[in-house]
């Protein structure tokens, strides 16, 4: 079973950049085998398969600022999130709302922020993993409607 991690786009502020990078860190390094992501705007631009994302996977949203775009858009178009991470609560509102950052200009300080947020995602992730693997089995079967249960 896999868990979805959905980040905001993060175009308006540093919190968004950190949110994206922390999400990538989950996908690339921390739990590469257990995580999937989706581009948030695909809920609208994509098809049924994309909109079904949060129904198929327990999903954690990661937002940079208190607009909570990732959480709200996921819940509006796809399904309820299992938990939500707010970057501003972790690195401070002021830092989070400063200007957006190119990955070219990442400093050690920024990387530290990314790590902190990633750890928070990890914590929530493990909690979600525990509770949902105890629950129903998700997203199995081939969906071909043949009832083969494969």
């Amino acid at each position: 079973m896999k868990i979805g991690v959905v980040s905001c786009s993060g175009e308006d502020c540093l919190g968004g950049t950190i949110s994206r990078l922390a999400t990538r860190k989950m996908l690339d390094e921390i739990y590469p085998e257990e995580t999937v992501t989706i581009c948030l705007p695909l809920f609208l631009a994509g098809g049924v398969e994309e909109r079904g994302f949060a129904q198929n996977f327990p999903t954690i949203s990661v937002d940079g600022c208190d607009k909570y775009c990732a959480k709200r858009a996921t819940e509006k178009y796809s399904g309820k999130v299992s938990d939500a991470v707010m970057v501003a609560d972790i690195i401070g509102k002021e830092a989070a709302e400063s200007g957006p950052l190119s990955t070219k200009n990442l400093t050690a300080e920024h990387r530290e922020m990314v790590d902190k947020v990633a750890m928070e995602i990890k914590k929530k992730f493990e909690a979600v993993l525990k509770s949902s693997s105890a629950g129903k089995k998700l997203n199995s079967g081939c969906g071909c409607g043949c009832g083969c249960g494969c």
Partner: protein
Amino acid sequence: MAKSYAVLPCNGLDKSAGCIAREIALRIAEQPENELLCPVFYRVSDARYNKTASEKPLLVIDGCSTRCASKLAAEKGLKIAGKVTVTEEAKKRRVTPGKSLRLGESELALAAAIAEELLREEEQVERPKEDRFAGIVYDYAVYTKDKFIFRVPRGGFYFNENDCWVYIVGNVARVGVTDYVQQSLSDIMFFTPPEVGAEVEQFGELGTIESGKAVFEVVSPVSGRVISINEELLAAPELINENPYEKGWIAELELLDPESDREFLLDFEQYFEVLKKKVDEFHV
């Protein structure tokens, strides 16, 4: 009524086939009412030719199988009324053009013959080109892994273990790749078509498609002679990602040995099992 045409040749100045293409274009353009589009100028400036190109039926003349002129026409969104590729025409006529960029007698004769035929064919066009594959009914079975969806069409489609499909109507086969290929490659950015007219054996190469991840060789499920390729893929190979069974088909072949091909084809049930196994084992 003598019709008037817009002629778009390639400008292959570095190959004799390109020079022949240019010669054919000149011959057609010399007829009254016809107009020549310069591909080099067209690339930098839309304004000059857009009107002509949209009003007159367009004849596209390519020198070699790189098909620069066809690609240009596709990029500009033009509808092609008629087209030839010099290397293929030469093969058909069993002529081997010389290497020299200056046209000799036989090259000029070839150019004249191709030009004449192209005009004659177009005179009697108007016959709408019927699409013999228009009647396909698409009914997909779906296998899901994570967020990836793999569709496999039922009914009439056959497959090989190299994840290519074939749909046969009469003596003609349409060929493409399956969702497994398109999902594995991710964003497909390049399509190198097979040469029209070429004979391909079963499991032979039918062009390649390429993404940032890899190059995939289309492995022909049947043996045959390539009679057409999906021109739209030249400008928009992403159609393969959107749906490799419908708008993303690769090529059409005239079958050479359907009986013996059959032996090596999988039907829907067989391929669906192969696909599920591959997805479970390898797909990341």
